[in-house]
């Protein structure tokens, strides 16, 4: 027996020892690993509370395949290496499926552990790379950033009839990724980029950037900056009297930006994947229940956590047995309709990579509040 065989045997034994308790257990063990402390705590706590509320509902409704669900919490401390250790711990303690993490940097690291153990993992992360690494056990709860740009591009072209557009973006990994995807979409659709204005990370003075954009003759400006820079940009744009629409992602119209930019944020448009204000009664009802239960307003991460927990339930029941491997296989190519599976809130599909397709929303800031302007179809 050569070394490779020994490893294969050892790995198989490990897999068996990990998944064996799942067959025998009386309760279904689901582990949540999220950012409960550290800089990601706002996202991680929202996600955890959304998932916990879903599990409570699932248990009240008879559990999964008639078994009650036991939800364990693990704190990743917003740290990639800690998240990896916590995923390992959760699996060692017999987790049947995993929820989390939200931070993309953590998920990229910890999803390898779940992959080795063959445990399905529902993540709240949105970095494109996560579903491009060929991991058959990772599943998103909201689509990756690379799926946003075609939706925004279609809206600019079909609804706003834009033929010339300008781009303001931050020159970082995040900004460059968004910029490149957006520019490629524009080229494909024949929309002219009349100004391409990069800015530095943590830039404070946007006067020169706005001057360039203002004089470019663009019919709309796509703004892809981080939240604080977005707020400074919006203030400067208001000051210099930019009248064309400013369009961006969640980072342009998030509550933090609205708080920082004040009145200057009014009129800004942004594409969001999930929002408690979505014109979907099930989402609004979930958000209302969440607020009553936790005394704070749910954000998109809370909705993602909620959907993630229900996705495990529906996929497991579709399989008909508590088998982590089969659940992961079932999720590939699965479509869940909200009409038959109310906990999923909005119709959702997973492809062979674990990527998600679902409708999303174009939001406008009006009087300092997000209002849904349009629903963008799934792609």
């Amino acid at each position: 027996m050569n070394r490779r065989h020994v490893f294969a045997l050892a790995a198989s034994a490990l897999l068996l020892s990990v998944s064996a308790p799942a067959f025998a257990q009386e309760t279904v063990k689901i582990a949540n690993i999220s950012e409960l402390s550290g800089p990601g705590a706002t996202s991680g706590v929202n996600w955890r509370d959304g998932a916990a509320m879903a599990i409570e509902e699932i248990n009240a409704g008879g559990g999964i395949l008639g078994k009650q669900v036991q939800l364990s919490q693990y704190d990743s401390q917003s740290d990639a290496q800690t998240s990896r250790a916590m995923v390992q711990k959760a699996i060692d303690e017999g987790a049947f499926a995993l929820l989390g993490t939200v931070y993309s940097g953590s998920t990229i690291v910890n999803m390898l552990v779940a992959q080795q153990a063959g445990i399905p993992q529902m993540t709240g992360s949105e970095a494109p790379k996560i579903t491009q690494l060929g991991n058959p056990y990772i599943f998103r709860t909201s689509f990756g950033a690379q799926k946003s740009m075609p939706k925004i591009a279609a809206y600019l072209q079909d609804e706003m009839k834009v033929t010339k557009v300008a781009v303001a973006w931050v020159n970082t990994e995040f900004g460059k990724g968004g910029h490149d995807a957006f520019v490629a979409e524009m080229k494909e659709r024949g929309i002219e980029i009349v100004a391409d204005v990069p800015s530095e990370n943590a830039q404070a003075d946007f006067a020169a950037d706005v001057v360039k954009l203002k004089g470019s003759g663009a019919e709309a400006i796509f703004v892809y900056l981080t939240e604080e820079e977005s707020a400074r940009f919006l203030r400067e744009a208001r000051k210099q009297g930019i009248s064309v629409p400013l369009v961006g992602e969640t980072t342009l119209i998030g509550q933090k930006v609205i708080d920082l930019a004040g009145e200057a944020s009014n009129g800004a448009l942004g594409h969001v994947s999930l929002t408690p204000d979505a014109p979907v009664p099930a989402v609004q009802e979930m958000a209302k229940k969440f607020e009553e239960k936790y005394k704070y307003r749910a954000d998109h991460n809370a909705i993602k956590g909620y959907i993630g927990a229900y996705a495990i339930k529906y996929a497991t029941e579709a399989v008909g047995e508590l088998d982590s491997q089969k659940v992961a296989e079932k999720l590939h190519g699965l479509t869940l309709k909200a009409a038959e599976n109310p906990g999923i809130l909005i119709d959702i599909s997973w492809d062979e990579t674990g990527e998600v397709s679902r409708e999303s929303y174009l939001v406008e800031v009006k009087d300092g509040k997000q209002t849904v302007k349009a629903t963008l179809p799934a792609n």
Partner: protein
Amino acid sequence: MTEFLQVVLSGLATGSIYALAAIGFTLLWQASQTINFAQGEFVMLPAFFVLIGMHVLGMPLIAAMIFALILSLILLGVIFKKFVIEPMLPHGTLPIVMATIALGILMKETVKEFYSAEAQPYPSLVADRTLDFFGAAVSTQDILNLVVSMLVVVALQFFLSGTRTGRSMQATAQNPQVAEILGVNIKRMVLYTFLINAALAAVASFLISPIYLAKFSNGEPIGLVAFIAAIVGGFNQIRGALVGGLLIGVVDNLAAIYVSAQYRAAVPLILLIVIILVRPQGLLGKAEGRAV
């Protein structure tokens, strides 16, 4: 042309705030040979005093600004001089440089610890309105920045050359030994300089925070720009620091438009090198002697 005018006006508005910080730099150097590398953090901090006044103590904006100014005078003026500069002064300039760098880091991290790493909204003193100036947009905030900075500089010039205390301060800066023989209380004069620097930093903070937002890391870029502005203008002249500040503000914006955004931060440094090569004493500086 409108584009050029817009860039110049926006540059002057932010440059005028850099000038206030640069003048503080110059004053401290003249009075006590202190190069204050925490100057940027001195501008960052008072905005948080205002926020504490408003959100923790429930004060209206103006009262919170007065509270912040008093706190700045005590902490950034008296305490800074007494506990950081005075013990270091006998050991020369270099230990002071090290001490102020350490102080800057301490201030930054403390604000981060107590007020989070996120930027905070900061109220503007004037309603956000935009006026048309030959096609360029000038906001009321820009006008306020320019007017307040100029008034502060004029008042400071008048104080230093038109009053007895001001002239004593000048004498202290030029020749402390002779000034002391002539009966000038040089310790008090040096303290006044520190108090003026603290007040300038507070005013700069009140003006720049509505644009930059209140954030723990704001001190780094402001401190660097103020330092460059002070050298470009001439380290021993208030007028020089003023010109240096305005020049850097305008050059920074022009560079972003006509050079590139990536290199905009380097252009003021290139300007600094050129000026040191051509005119080592700075644009308005004197080749020798010290004067406040």
